């Protein structure tokens, strides 16, 4: 499931003339597909630096409640503190979801090493997928590049329609999907944070009212 997203991301980065090294490094450094897509797309739109960094940052806000929930489950006196700060960088939705499922059947002392093993595999597979998507888009005929880039919107279209049971996710995604193109008409460079703020706040208000 991750593979499809990162293949598409690699192709998108190639199509937007981002160097291969940056594309692959972003998978390790940002390690959040939405943030990486925002990074590449806003760079292509010529967005101001502040707008870009803020949009990338806010797009990963879900990580704070996720880390807050996960860290106490992994805590064990035998491990040093820095290991937890490094473990936090490895957090992603897939790793977190798997940890929530597996931790109850695991001894506390083993959880941190399991976390490192599992999330590092996820990261390596994702980095390889990024490189593969990039090289595919770069070397294959233009039509294949088009198809690979098209995987990015398809990936999120399916996640959006698949998430209808989770009301806050579905509403946030739906309101953002409407706000995105509208904000782009108003101001291309600022469209991403604008659409997020407007669409997200609308979704929040709808959630509160119902």
């Amino acid at each position, binding site marked *: 499931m991750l593979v499809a997203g990162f293949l598409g991301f690699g192709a998108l980065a190639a199509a937007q003339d981002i160097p291969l090294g940056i594309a692959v490094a972003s998978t390790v450094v940002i390690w959040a597909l939405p943030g990486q897509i925002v990074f590449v797309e806003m760079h292509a739109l010529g967005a101001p630096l502040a707008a870009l960094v803020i949009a990338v940052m806010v797009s990963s806000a879900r990580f704070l409640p996720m880390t807050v929930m996960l860290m106490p489950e992994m805590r064990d006196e035998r491990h040093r503190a820095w290991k937890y700060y490094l473990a936090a960088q490895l957090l992603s939705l897939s790793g977190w979801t798997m940890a929530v499922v597996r931790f109850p059947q695991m001894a506390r002392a083993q959880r941190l090493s399991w976390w490192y093993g599992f999330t590092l595999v996820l990261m390596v597979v994702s980095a390889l997928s990024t490189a593969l998507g990039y090289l595919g888009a770069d070397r294959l005929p233009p039509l294949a590049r088009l198809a690979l880039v098209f995987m990015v919107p398809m990936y999120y279209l399916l996640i959006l329609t698949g998430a209808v049971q989770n009301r806050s996710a579905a509403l946030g995604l739906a309101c953002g999907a409407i706000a995105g*193109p509208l904000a782009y008409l108003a101001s291309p460079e600022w469209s991403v944070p604008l659409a997020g703020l407007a669409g997200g706040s609308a979704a929040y208000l709808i959630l509160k009212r119902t």
Partner: protein
Amino acid sequence: MSELWVLLALCGLATYLWRGPGVLLSAGIDPRSEAFAWISCVAYAIIAGVVSRMLVMPTGALAETSALERALGSAAALGAYFWLTRRNLLVGVAAGAAALWLLKL
């Protein structure tokens, strides 16, 4: 070129600001607070906004496709995801990409 690396480092740092403090804050923060509910709505809206703009008003590579082609590609992805497979994301995404390819041949 090198400024892109700086930009990437800034973005990595900005993302880490949500992960790192979670280690320290673990006890003192309530993930179900209203502020979290709002900011996670904004986070979902940001990525949905970017992606829907790619579909509705594409720039770059996808600008070479017509709205009808993108709509048919989306329909193929949705069909493969919901009816052909039991919500297999990889198959759905691949079906969308393959459909766009066939339409363009």
